[in-house]
């Protein structure tokens, strides 16, 4: 019977092609718009490291001005002072810990023919690579010993290695960076977490860095730091004074394996702040926080307001399209009243009619869904074109989304078809036959 109903549906769709086309277009546009915004939101709020996002914690301490609290007192500062992150680093109370900041430098290639190269860098400590599951093609990250003995080591991104060494295994070679020779210990495979969760202070959707160097180089002024710096107290003259100041510019992550570890670490932080209070620092009420990856992305509002507003609007748009479809289906099915009456008189049961018209609605929904998928694809291309770098890699339709689009189209059209179908099934045959 199913194929028979399908054929009937097809005939009916073709007969009223104008009305059907209108419905398919309406559903297609609704689904296309909704899926475009859903995809953007879904990718913006994706978990960038699902395998261990529960074990990685971002540390916040409230070191700010007692008269003028950071973020109006709603949240503690989003970064730590150099003093605090160095102290936490030395205490080694977590399973793994990493202090980091953004840096930059100029590489002078050995080949005099090549032009010097400005690179974006990350200054971090040894655990960075294992904490964030950074994939390597050659070599590996440096060891904690390298941090302690202040070695000049560097990890290159794949792109930088391609540029400088034509993609070959460069581990063991040296590069001249900011006038000093650095030994290459590893080359990272293509790695671009979206969002770039490990540092969202300079843009959650920025590219990952060209090089990675030990954090101690910043303190020794062997590499220049960049990124955001916030100060509430005057600093003294010179870099040493800056390091000792209350300026925040470092980020601190810890890896903790269990809930118990987390509680212990929080206790450790509280004790640390208590101790610092005795030196006259941390005059605000105690507000230390440990946020796991998703909590951190949430508090930092990584998903743009625009994207959320557009998603809300696109769903309202979808509802308009569905209301439209309900109206048009109603018009279509009621227009067939004489036919329905006749079929009922000839013995068609209500359930037969019901399945037939639901199948017809589903067919329209399916066509609408396919159109919607095409429109969503074009929509995402458009979004990518309009927003440029900001949306790069955020606007792509994966299989999950494609399936969701078609399913959403089917279900919503069937729902939209329920009332018209119900009305069609309740047509009085006698009434219709009388007027024949």
């Amino acid at each position, binding site marked *: 019977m199913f194929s028979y109903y399908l054929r009937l549906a097809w005939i009916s769709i073709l007969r009223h092609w104008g*009305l059907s086309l*209108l419905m398919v*277009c*309406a559903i297609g*546009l609704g689904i296309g*718009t909704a899926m475009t915004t859903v995809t953007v939101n879904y990718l913006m709020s994706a978990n960038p490291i699902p395998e261990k996002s529960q074990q990685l914690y971002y540390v916040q301490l409230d070191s700010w001005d*007692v*008269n*003028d609290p950071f973020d109006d007192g709603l949240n503690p500062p989003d970064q730590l002072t150099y003093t605090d992150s160095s102290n936490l680093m030395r205490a080694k109370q977590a399973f793994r810990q990493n202090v980091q900041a953004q840096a930059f430098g*100029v590489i*002078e290639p050995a080949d005099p023919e090549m*032009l*010097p190269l*400005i690179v974006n860098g990350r200054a971090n400590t040894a655990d960075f690579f294992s904490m964030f599951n950074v994939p390597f093609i050659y070599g590996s990250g440096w060891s904690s010993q390298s941090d302690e003995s202040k070695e000049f080591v560097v990890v290159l991104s794949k792109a930088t290695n391609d540029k400088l060494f034509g993609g070959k295994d460069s581990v063991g070679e040296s590069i001249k960076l*900011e*006038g000093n020779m650095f030994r290459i210990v590893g080359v990272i495979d293509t790695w671009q977490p979206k969002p770039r969760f490990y540092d969202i202070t300079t843009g959650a959707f920025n590219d990952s860095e060209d090089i990675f160097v030990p954090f101690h180089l910043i303190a020794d002024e062997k590499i*220049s730091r960049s990124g955001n710096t916030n100060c509430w*107290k*005057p*600093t*003294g*003259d*010179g*870099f040493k*004074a*800056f390091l000792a100041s209350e300026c925040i510019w470092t980020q601190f992550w810890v890896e903790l394996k269990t809930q118990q570890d987390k509680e212990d670490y929080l206790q450790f932080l509280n004790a640390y702040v208590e101790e610092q209070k005795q030196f006259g620092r941390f005059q605000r009420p105690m507000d230390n926080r440990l946020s796991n990856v998703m909590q951190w992305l949430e508090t930092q509002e990584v998903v*743009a*307001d*625009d994207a*959320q*507003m*557009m998603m809300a*609007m*696109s769903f*309202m*748009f979808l*509802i*308009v*399209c569905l*209301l*439209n479809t*309900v*109206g*048009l289906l*109603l*018009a*279509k099915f*009621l*227009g067939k009243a*004489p036919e329905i009456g006749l079929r009922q008189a000839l013995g068609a049961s209500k359930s037969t009619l019901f399945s037939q018209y639901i199948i017809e609605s589903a067919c329209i929904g399916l066509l609408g869904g396919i159109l919607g998928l095409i429109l969503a694809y074009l929509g995402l291309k*458009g*979004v990518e074109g*309009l*927003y*440029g770098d*900001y949306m790069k890699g955020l606007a792509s339709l994966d299989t999950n989304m494609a399936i969701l689009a078609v399913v959403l189209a089917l279900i919503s059209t069937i729902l939209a078809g329920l*009332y018209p179908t119900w*009305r069609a099934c309740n047509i009085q045959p006698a009434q219709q036959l009388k*007027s*024949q």
Partner: protein
Amino acid sequence: MLETGLILRALARNKIGALLIALQIALTMTIMVNAIFMIQDRQQQMQRESGLDEANTFYLTNTIFGQNYNIQAHLQTDLHMIRNTPGVVDAIQINAVPLSGSGWSMALQHESGEDKDAVGSAIYMVDDHAINSMGLELIAGANFKQADIELRKDGQSTWPAKTIITKAFAENLYPGDWQSAIGKTVYISQTQPMQIIGVVKALQAPWNGWNGVERSMLVPFQREAKGSYYFIRTEAGRRDELMPIIEKALAQSDKERIIRRVTTVEETRERSYLQQNATNKILTTVVITLTLITGFGIVGLAIFGINSRTKQIGTRRALGATKGQIMRYFMMENFIISTFGIVIGCVGAVALNMWLVNNFNLSPISVELVAFGVVTLFIVGQLAVLYPARKASMIAPAIATRTV
């Protein structure tokens, strides 16, 4: 209208069809009004004046990597060379570029001391050529003199004795009487005094999303830093021709630095508002498509309504109704349905706006905008029903005599 009662009774018999159209109109109204509001909000942001002579200015980054590089000497040579290039009006070294997204900010306070209220401002470290190079308009006080310019070492924490601020900043510091700012002493870094010697009409901060974007100050510093910008203004219309010339001249003058990112201020503005622009384009498309869908929905349902009432229409025509009366009937019917939808739509628009205000920090919509939505949707409704109504009026009276 005689027909109103008739139409209302007819509508009451076919509630669902009318209700569906009314709901569509209501939702369209809700979305349309709020989307247009969001578009206007962004447009206003984008239209704020940067204060710069945008059409004739560009900048580039100068990154020094040489080990024993005489930054101070090279800076003077560079500036001398650029300023003397034919077609160049003036040039400066600067630490940040308006609207570029990255810069330096400090807070100023009226009194010296630790726990005093302070107002944040963007800092531009420049010399006495800044007003001319950026195309700023000095509306009160005086420019820096050459003797005011100090050399700033990396990591230096003291500030010079003079500053020029924007009018918006002056208004913020001295509400109601910005002109009184001239000659006043303010404190930077909590305790260091600075005298306000001039006020410029406008100069935006590097961050367009910051609520203090109109607050900026010029500080007479030349920086001895390894990375800085040169900001250059050319004679009208000569910018594009001079950009490569200056880039080349600087790049070739010595090999211990990298000249990069030669960028026009216009490009910077465009990049700065890329997101706003993109969102506006998308919202515009949504509003237009939505209106079209609703319009076509009305057409479809009206045609259906007319088809199922062919006989009635024929009968009315046979009984003497004119074509105009038939048309008027359907237009009136649509008007009643639209009114119903629009009333709900007004409520919806305000409700959605309240939600947006609460969740996304937007301001409330204006009455004019709601009125605009009302008028637009009445027009769309009437236009959409025009074709079906005309079709209805063409129905021949003879139809009444036929059975089906």
